[in-house]
């Protein structure tokens, strides 16, 4: 098979369309950010901090600038506006309380290992590298804050003027203490998650140049082309003098949501006039790129004798690292999701995120909603054991349903298909036998909820342009970044479905902030939901315009006009008018044959920094239930995942294969989080700076992952789809924890479940038994 086409007939939406981008990628034809080059291009590199916390006494660049081929070394004082103000990136204006600042280049103090201090521009990579080595930085080391528990102590060194408390959320619904006092069973535990790296295969990269009319044009791997505005502010330029293009991106997962190379490329172009390329090494990426927040959670959960939740008290402390970035928002997701997909009348949540001298934490797939799954699901399993109820049964008794209100005050508007997902998973095969003596197998389940779409008070919107060309082909223009999930190809399917044009005759231009309608960030599981709705709307408006023209030509009512691959026809068959003829007719009567449309998400009342605030936070949620079989080696503690089934209600699968791809990929990432991955710091020094130290799963560790895709027909995306990019990453860790307990009776609450931790817990249990 080659070329784009639909499989097995049928309509385009819902079919396993071959992705146009995959055909290019599999031949090595795709030009990723680092693959681009320009004549007279410079090479840029960053001098980064060796210390996690230090005062910069002196930066000496003369020797570096004297190296043959080095054009210039920039430090903080060279940057027109050295402060990066992070709003929530994308379509919005200021959101006040969530504004966070960091520096483009470190000024007086460095606050994490790898923080950029100086920027080198040179004629060659070798010259740039030599310059990095020749820059002399004198530091006065400062005490390192590396324990979030102690960051809030009175005598802790303060990392920012505002203190070490970065953000906090507190809410109480009902009376948690009274509820716990009356509960038939109360379980309590502390859960800890670790720092995680995105570890996309494509390191951060980009090329920039000064284009016509002085527009600084940056072609970089990013999830957010709207960062053109942030670069403009740094360069002290009007917004419309910076243009950001993103080619197909080699993986994002939230790690290319904050800016990476963009400001540095902009600075070199603005201050030298030369084109420039910057590519981060894997070591730089692993050392200095944002991580997933490490979180400590304390849960006290109470239920009545039937296992129905009566009260929950949750205390969340997350390590935000050295700069705020998106930590406050990540913590909002943790707060919103802290009780899980369960009804509970009395809930108290205290969530705090603090500054430390660790690499700043920010967005990563699951975005605060996934860490808490280890807590709320661990508690459900504990309650099930305490009360002697089957773990799936106790969940069934507590699932939220349409019309219920989450503790934060959001009413659930769409159907919650968790009972059906549990049914589908509980009918699965018998569990496997252990492969030998001193080996034990176990099965675990976990459920979750995860929002899709941005917080509604950000007033999110997406725009898309669709037009016919004179030869009857179709063009979509939309600034969507495609980070590998099939963001672009799904839009082709939607347009093709409505307008009849075969997918291979649709061309899509993506990821350009100047020439394409803005459509917002490829983050927050929002792109199919938002851009999909924008394309759907544009396609429908275009169809309406052309159907009127076709009705005249066919001499039928407009609603009887059918759009097919060859053109328009009467719905009962008969004559087909080719698109070329239709377009000529449309042009002759000035009927639009291209349309710009905007889809707007539901609007909401902004969050107030007030404990009594309640309301709708997100457009909607996606729910899932996963099951895993593991085998534990009781002597080594090695955990092998034998089989994995992941079920989600996706509303409608626009491309079922892409849906499975999102589920399987997220499960693999979740299993890495469960079993092997961790960013390790020692007094703020990152010790996991290569892929030989930071261990993402290989094909050998991964089990066969089966997706159970339920289509409820309810969701807020096009064709009632729900988002699926992030949701499947939540359940794997708690499911594995439950399976390990089922296999050998140990309760693990600290990620990752490494062989050392597993075998230590087994030994402790066996010693206790022997004693």
């Amino acid at each position: 098979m080659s070329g784009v086409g639909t499989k097995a007939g049928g309509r385009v939406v819902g079919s396993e369309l071959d992705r146009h981008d995959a055909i290019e990628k599999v031949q090595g034809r795709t030009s990723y950010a680092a693959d681009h080059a320009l004549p007279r291009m410079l090479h840029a590199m960053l001098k980064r901090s060796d210390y996690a916390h230090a005062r910069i006494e002196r930066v000496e660049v003369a020797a570096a600038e004297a190296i043959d081929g080095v054009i210039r070394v920039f430090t903080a004082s060279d940057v027109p506006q050295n402060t990066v103000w992070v709003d929530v990136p994308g379509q919005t204006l200021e959101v006040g309380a969530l504004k966070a600042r960091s520096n483009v280049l470190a000024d007086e103090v460095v606050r994490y290992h790898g923080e950029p201090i100086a920027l080198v521009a040179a004629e060659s990579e070798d010259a740039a590298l030599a310059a990095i080595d020749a820059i002399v930085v004198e530091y006065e080391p400062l005490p390192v804050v590396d324990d979030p528990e102690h960051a809030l102590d009175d005598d802790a060194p303060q990392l920012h003027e505002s203190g070490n408390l970065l953000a906090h959320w507190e809410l109480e619904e009902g009376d948690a203490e009274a509820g716990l006092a009356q509960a038939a069973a109360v379980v309590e535990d502390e859960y800890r998650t670790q720092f995680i790296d995105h570890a996309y295969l494509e390191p951060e990269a980009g090329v920039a140049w000064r284009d016509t009319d002085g527009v600084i044009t940056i072609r970089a791997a990013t999830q957010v082309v709207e960062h053109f505005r942030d670069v403009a502010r740094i360069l002290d330029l009007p917004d419309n003098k910076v243009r950001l293009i993103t080619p197909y991106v080699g993986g994002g997962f939230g790690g290319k949501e904050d800016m990476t190379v963009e400001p540095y490329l902009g600075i070199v172009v603005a201050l030298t006039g030369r084109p420039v390329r910057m590519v981060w090494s894997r070591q730089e990426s692993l050392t200095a790129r944002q991580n997933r927040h490490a979180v400590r959670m304390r849960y006290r959960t109470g239920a009545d004798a039937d296992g129905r939740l009566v009260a929950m008290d949750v205390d969340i402390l997350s390590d935000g690292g050295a700069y705020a970035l998106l930590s406050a928002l990540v913590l909002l997701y943790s707060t919103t999701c802290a009780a899980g997909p369960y009804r509970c009348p009395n809930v108290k949540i205290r969530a705090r995120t603090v500054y430390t001298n660790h690499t700043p934490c920010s967005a990563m797939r699951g975005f605060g909603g996934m860490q808490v799954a280890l807590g709320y699901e661990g508690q459900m399993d504990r309650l099930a054991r305490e009360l002697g109820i089957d773990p799936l049964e106790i969940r069934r008794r507590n699932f939220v349903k349409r019309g219920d209100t989450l503790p934060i005050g959001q009413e659930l508007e769409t159907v919650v298909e968790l009972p059906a997902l549990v049914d589908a998973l509980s009918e699965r095969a018998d569990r496997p036998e252990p492969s030998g003596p001193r080996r034990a197998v176990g099965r675990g389940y976990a459920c979750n909820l995860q929002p899709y779409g941005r917080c509604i008070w950000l007033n999110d919107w997406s725009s898309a342009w669709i037009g016919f060309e004179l030869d009857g082909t179709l063009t979509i223009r939309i600034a969507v970044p495609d980070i590998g999930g099939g963001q672009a190809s799904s839009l082709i399917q939607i347009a093709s479905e409505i307008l009849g044009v075969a997918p291979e005759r649709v061309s899509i231009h993506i990821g350009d902030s100047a020439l394409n309608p803005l459509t917002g960030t490829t983050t927050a599981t929002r792109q199919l939901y938002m851009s999909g709705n924008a394309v759907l709307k544009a396609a429908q408006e275009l169809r309406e315009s052309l159907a009127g023209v076709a009705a005249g030509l066919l001499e039928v009512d407009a609603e009887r006009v059918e759009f097919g691959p060859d053109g328009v026809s009467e719905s009962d068959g008969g004559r087909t008018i080719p698109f070329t003829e239709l377009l000529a007719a449309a042009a002759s009567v000035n009927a639009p044959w291209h349309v710009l449309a905007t889809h707007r998400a539901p609007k909401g009342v902004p969050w107030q920094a007030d404990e009594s605030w309640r309301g709708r936070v997100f457009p909607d949620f996606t729910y899932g239930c996963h099951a895993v079989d593991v085998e534990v080696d009781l002597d080594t503690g090695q955990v092998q995942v034998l089989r994995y089934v992941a079920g989600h209600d996706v509303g409608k699968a626009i491309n079922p294969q892409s849906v499975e791809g999102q589920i399987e990929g997220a499960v693999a990432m979740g299993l890495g989080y469960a079993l092997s991955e961790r960013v390790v710091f020692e007094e703020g020094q990152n010790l996991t700076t290569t892929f030989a130290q930071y261990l993402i799963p290989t094909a050998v560790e991964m089990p066969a992952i089966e997706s159970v895709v339920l289509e409820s027909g309810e969701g807020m995306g096009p064709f009632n789809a729900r988002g699926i990019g992030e949701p499947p990453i939540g359940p794997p860790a708690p499911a594995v924890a439950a399976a390990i307990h089922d296999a050998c009776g140990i309760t693990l609450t600290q990620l990752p479940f490494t062989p050392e931790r597993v075998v230590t817990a087994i030994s402790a249990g066996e010693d206790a038994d022997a004693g």
Partner: protein
Amino acid sequence: MTVEFTLNGAPQRLEVPPHWTLLRMLRDAAGRTDAKHGCGEGVCGACAVLVDGVAMNSCSVLAPQVEGASVETVAGLADGDELHPLQAEMVGRGAVQCGFCTPGMVLSALEAVRVGAAGSEEEIRHSLAGNLCRCTGYGKIIAAVAAYRDGGGAGEVATEQGAAGHRDSDGGEGAAPAPGVGIGP
């Protein structure tokens, strides 16, 4: 120094500093960007190419080491616009997402099938252990490789190389994980 080798069948004569890696020579001297720089330390496999038929991480091979060798990259596999059968299986089975690991993955898989190291699902998994993918969870890649093998990929090339019979007796089983099961609301 001068390095002479063939790249996807075409003779090359390139001037490069002797400390350059094969990856850097391909990208910066030959202008070919289909081998990807993922880690630069021989772990991720995104830069894998075939050197005399053997998959190697080109970031860990010095340019002069391929003097006289035949180097194949993923760009050389398709026949014009007609995809190589393994490439077609990768596309058709949804094994390509961000695509950054894909060139190295395809070449490692091709070598595995050619030398008979893709007989079972487990063998395929071990053959691809040096190629990291962060997007797919590997299942659809394994399925694509198994389908290519079963579609004659192994036989075709095995005959060429006189290596028929290397496949495991249990290798006929589809290695694909079960497809998603739709259930009604």
